């Protein structure tokens, strides 16, 4: 188990008149190597939750366990340095954390800080940058002269350069162009699939992570109101929408199709390509049936092969 939360609550300004409960009684288990998506309205506690994963915040009640590190309300924290290297956190607007005068120095800062040699830090810097689709010509450039999207990529590279086991990202794709967003989602997927990293992403755009995330968590008003697989998420979609979750078109479209054509029990097709194949099959099946004089069925096709 990579991350376990037991009855975790967190309040800003706890024990003051302005106590502001941000997390209420969260129980959560995330296995090592999962790709998890966290969604919920603004102010639902997503960012507060993330900051418990590497000990930036300590629960005001309950217990957080990440690997062997236990952070418990009312007890002294263990040394957190190694935990912070193993859990890389990419904050919202990571470009605000850029501070050096070249991209290379900026990305090297983390690895050097955690005691790596200069050569190793430089090698990792170049590798991390390439992973984000930026070539070595960026190394000598001033990060503040880059475009917003490029700055975002450099900032993400600086976390990847530390080679964390768990990568936690808070809204990493906001302000990137649509294809860069898709590429970043795919990069995260490769890190999870090929290198066995645990990836946790807070997102406002569910559709971007839907092809990859196998676990979904929905937050509302500081509480976890849902945790489950993609299929469960799609089935629960209408209920979740009623509690304020905005759904991407691919889910609403599939659910409409499923309701119309009676496909509720199938694996949802959440890409335009897979949904089109499924529908085309329905329509052609129907045509085949019509040529059969014995068939006058008006019920939708059942038991079609599921398409992923």
């Amino acid at each position, binding site marked *: 188990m990579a991350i376990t939360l037991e009855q975790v609550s967190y309040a800003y300004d706890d024990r003051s008149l302005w106590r502001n409960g941000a997390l209420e009684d969260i129980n959560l288990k995330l296995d090592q190597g999962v790709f998890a998506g966290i969604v919920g*309205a*603004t*102010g639902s506690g997503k960012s507060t939750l993330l900051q418990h994963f590497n000990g930036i915040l300590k629960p005001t009640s309950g217990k957080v366990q990440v690997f062997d590190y236990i952070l418990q309300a009312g007890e002294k924290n263990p040394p957190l340095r190694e935990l912070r290297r193993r859990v890389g956190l990419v904050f919202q*607007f990571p470009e605000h954390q850029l501070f050096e005068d070249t991209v290379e120095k900026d990305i090297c800062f983390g690895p050097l800080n955690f005691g790596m040699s200069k050569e190793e830090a430089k090698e990792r810097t170049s590798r991390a940058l390439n992973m984000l689709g930026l070539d070595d010509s960026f190394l000598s450039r001033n990060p503040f*002269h*880059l*475009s*917003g*999207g*490029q700055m975002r990529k450099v900032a993400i590279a600086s976390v990847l350069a530390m080679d964390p086991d768990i990568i936690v990202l808070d809204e990493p794709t*906001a*302000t*990137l*162009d*649509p*294809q*860069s967003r*898709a590429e970043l989602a795919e990069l995260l997927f490769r890190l999870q699939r090929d290198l066995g990293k645990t990836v946790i992403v807070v997102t*406002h*755009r569910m*559709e971007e992570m839907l092809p990859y995330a196998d676990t979904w968590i929905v937050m509302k008003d500081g509480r976890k109101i849902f945790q489950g697989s993609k299929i469960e998420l799609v089935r629960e979609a209408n209920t979740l929408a009623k509690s304020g979750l*905005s759904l*991407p*078109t*691919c889910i609403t*479209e599939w659910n*409409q*199709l499923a309701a*119309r*054509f009676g496909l509720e029990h199938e694996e949802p097709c959440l890409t*335009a*390509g897979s*949904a*089109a*194949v499924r*529908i*085309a099959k*329905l*329509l052609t099946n*129907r*045509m085949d049936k*019509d040529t059969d004089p014995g068939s006058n069925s008006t019920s939708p096709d059942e038991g079609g092969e599921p398409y992923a």
Partner: protein
Amino acid sequence: MSGTENAYELHQVSFAYESEQSVLDGITLSIPSGSWVSLVGPNGCGKSTLAKLLGGLLAANAGEVVVEGTVLNRETIHQIRPRIGMVFQNPDNQFIGSTVEEDIAFGLEGRCLPREEMIHRVRKYGDKLEIGHLLSKHPSELSGGQKQRVAVAAILAMEPGIVIFDEASSMLDEKARGELLDIIKEMKQSGEYTIVSITHDAEEIMYSDRAIVLLDGGVAADLSPEDLFHDDALLQSCRLIAPYRIQLVRELAKLGVQVPPLQREEEVTEALWQLHLNK
């Protein structure tokens, strides 16, 4: 302003922050008054720089920017600037007042309007943007979407004829983004504004009149949103992705399922169901 006039005419406009790397190179385009134009292109293509040139925040190194018939330069900027309002990306970076009311009034104070007029406009545009109940709030009490509404109210209160949105919805959540889109639609419908929106949002581009595609500092295409989303090569090069419903209809077409042309908000499901029934 008469409807036939162009809000913008750009002739061979170039710009560079540092002399060796030009960001915009020989841009020529025109934007008619009252239209809604999307400015699209990949990260780093010069969109935001162009927005700043259009807003008069940067001056072109070469070429000419003509705003509503007047050439933009050091002499005319003071007369042109009040015609243009800009809404930027980050809601936190454009909040000046310590309450919503103060924030909307800030620009009006700069215009030296009489107190009664300021009060009137704060109320009028506060109500229009549905933030009338938030006027006494501190920015930290607002959500990102609410802050962007305040930013739009503050801009519209100055009654500009041209409003430039520089990725104004990109930091908002799904719901707030839909709301901002509704606001822009209403602005378009009122006919009082020329709207230039820099955006990656497929939905938003679909609703605009026209898309100008910027690539490597130049205009790569100037076309209708429908044409843009049916041009794979262009989508690829400006790193856009078509709206899901268009993707679905196109994927179906590849498989030989022809869905009749859909209006923007019509449901694909219903069209397919009809097809299913009629077969």
